[in-house]
C-alpha cells in the first residue's frame, strides 16, 4: 500500500525527505524516552516500542517508494484481482523480492499504532489513579528533581 506510483519527481523527493525526517524524529523520541529513564515505566515503554515500529514502517514505506517512483527500478501492476506483475529494471530478482517484502509495511504500522494506543491507555489509567494536581506539571516523575517539593 505504501507504493503510490505515478507521482511527480519533486513530489516523490519531498515524500522521501519527509520519511527521513520522520525516522529521525522517531529515533530522537526513542532516545529521549530511554534517556529520561522512562523505559521502566509502563506507558512510556509502550510508546517507545511504538516509535521503534514506526521507524521500521517508515523505512519500509520509504524503500517501496524509492524503488518504484523516482528510480523506476521497479514497475508493478496488478493483473486481475489476485496477481501482481512486478518487473525490475535491471532484471534483478532480489529487488523484486525486496519490493514484495516492503509492500507488507502494514505488518509494522499496525503494531506501531497498537503500542501507541496501549501506552496511552496505560498512562490514562495511571492518571486516573492520581488526582490532577498531584501530577508533576510536566508529567515527569522519574527525574526526582521536584522543585516545588510537594
Amino acid at each position, binding site marked *: 500500500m505504501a507504493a*503510490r506510483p505515478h*507521482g511527480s519527481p519533486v513530489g516523490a523527493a519531498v515524500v522521501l525527505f519527509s520519511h527521513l525526517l520522520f525516522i529521525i524524529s522517531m529515533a530522537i523520541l526513542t532516545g529521549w524516552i530511554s534517556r529520561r529513564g522512562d523505559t521502566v515505566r509502563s506507558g512510556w515503554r509502550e510508546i517507545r516500542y511504538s516509535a521503534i515500529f514506526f521507524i521500521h514502517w517508515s523505512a519500509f514505506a520509504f524503500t517501496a517508494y524509492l524503488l518504484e517512483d523516482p528510480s523506476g527500478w521497479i514497475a508493478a501492476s496488478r493483473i486481475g484481482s489476485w496477481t*501482481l506483475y512486478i518487473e525490475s529494471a535491471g532484471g534483478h*530478482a532480489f529487488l523484486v523480492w525486496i519490493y514484495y517484502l516492503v509492500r507488507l509495511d502494514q505488518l509494522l504500522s*499496525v503494531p506501531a499504532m497498537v503500542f*501507541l494506543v496501549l501506552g496511552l491507555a496505560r498512562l*490514562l489509567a495511571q492518571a486516573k489513579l492520581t488526582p490532577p494536581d498531584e501530577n508533576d506539571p510536566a508529567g515527569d516523575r522519574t527525574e526526582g528533581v521536584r522543585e*516545588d517539593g510537594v
Partner: protein
Amino acid sequence: MTVTAIPILLVDIIGSALMIVFSLLAIVYARRLNQRDPENLAGIFLLWLSVPLGTLFTLRSAGYILEATFFPAAQPPAPEYLSPLIDGITMLLLVGAASVILFFSRTWNMFRVVFTERNMLRRTRKELIDLNRTLKERVQERTDTLLNHEKQMARADRLASIGQLSSGIAHEINNPLGVIQGYTQLLMRDEDPGSQRYEDLQVILKHAKNCKAIVEDLRSFAKRSLPEKTETSIHDVIHDAILFVQNRVRKQNIRIDTCLDDAVVPMYMDEKKIRQVLVNLVMNACQAVGENGVIEIQTKLDAPARQVHIRVADDGCGIEKKDIERIFDPFFTTKPTGEGTGLGLAVSYGIIRNNGGEILVSSEPGWGSVFTVILPVLTAGNASGYS
C-alpha cells in the same frame, strides 16, 4: 515477474481496517489523557503527536480501502490527482508528527521549569490570598489572647490582695470561734440531752462549726503553705472525685464521661487538696447542668511543657460575661443563700496556685463552661519546688 498478490492484499485490507480503528483509538485516548489534566506537558505532547499520526494512518487506510473497492485491479485506473493528493497529505502529516517530536524534545526542560515555576507561583498566590483573608481573624485572635492574659494577671493581683485580707480576718476570727466552740461544749456537758437549753446550745455549736469550716476554707484560699506532696495517679484522684460527687447528685441523672490520657503517669502532688479542687469543679458542673446533663473530664499530657491538663467541661448554663471575672473571688456566688457560699472556686484557685499550677475558664452562656486545671508534672527529682 508475476507473483501472487494475495498476501499483500490481505495484509493491506486487514491492516487498513485495523489501522483505522487503532488510529482513532489513539486520538481518543490522547484526548482523554489531555482532558484529565489539560496542563500536563506529557499529555499535551502525546495529543499533538497522536493527532497527526492518527490522521495520517486513518486517511491512508481509508484511501486504500476506497481504492481497493472502487478501482480494483487498476481497471479503470485510479484518477490522476489521487496519488499526488495522498502523497501531499502523507508528507504533511509525517512532517507534522516529526516537528512535534523535535519541538517537544528541544523545549521539554524549558517547559518543565516554566510549568513548575507557574505552579509555585499559583500556590504562593493562593497562600497569600488565604493569609490576607485570615489576617483580620488572626489579629483578633492575638488581641483576644493578650486581653485574656491581661485579665488573668489583674485577677491574680486582686485575688492576692483579697487573700491577704481574708487570711487576716480568718486568723482573727478563728481564735474566738474556737473559744465559742469550747465553751458551748462545756455548757452542753452540764445539760440534759433532750432539754431545751441543750438543743439551743447544739444550734450554737452547729453554726460555730459552719463558721469554722468557712474560715478554714478562707485560710486555704489565702494560705501559702508547702503542699504535702505524694506520688499519686491523677486518674485515681479523678475517679475518687467523680464517685464522691455522683453519690451526692444521684437524682439528677448526670452522665460523667472521662477521656484519660494514658501518657499521664503518677506524679507528685498534694492528693487531698487536688481531690478537693476536682470535687469543687465537678460539683459546680453538676449544679450548672441540672437534670440529664453531660460532663466530660479529660486529661492530657503536654510533654514538652511538662504539664498535665485536666479539663472539666459541662453543657450547662454557662457563665455570664460580666461574672466570669469574679467567679474566683471569695464569696462570689450566683446561687441562692444556703446553696452556695462562693468559696469553691476561690479555694480551688488557692490550692492550684499553691501547687504551682494554673486554673483557666472559658464559657459560653447557654452552652456550657470549661474549666482547665494545669498542673506541673513533678517527679521525685524536682518534687520539692513550688511556686
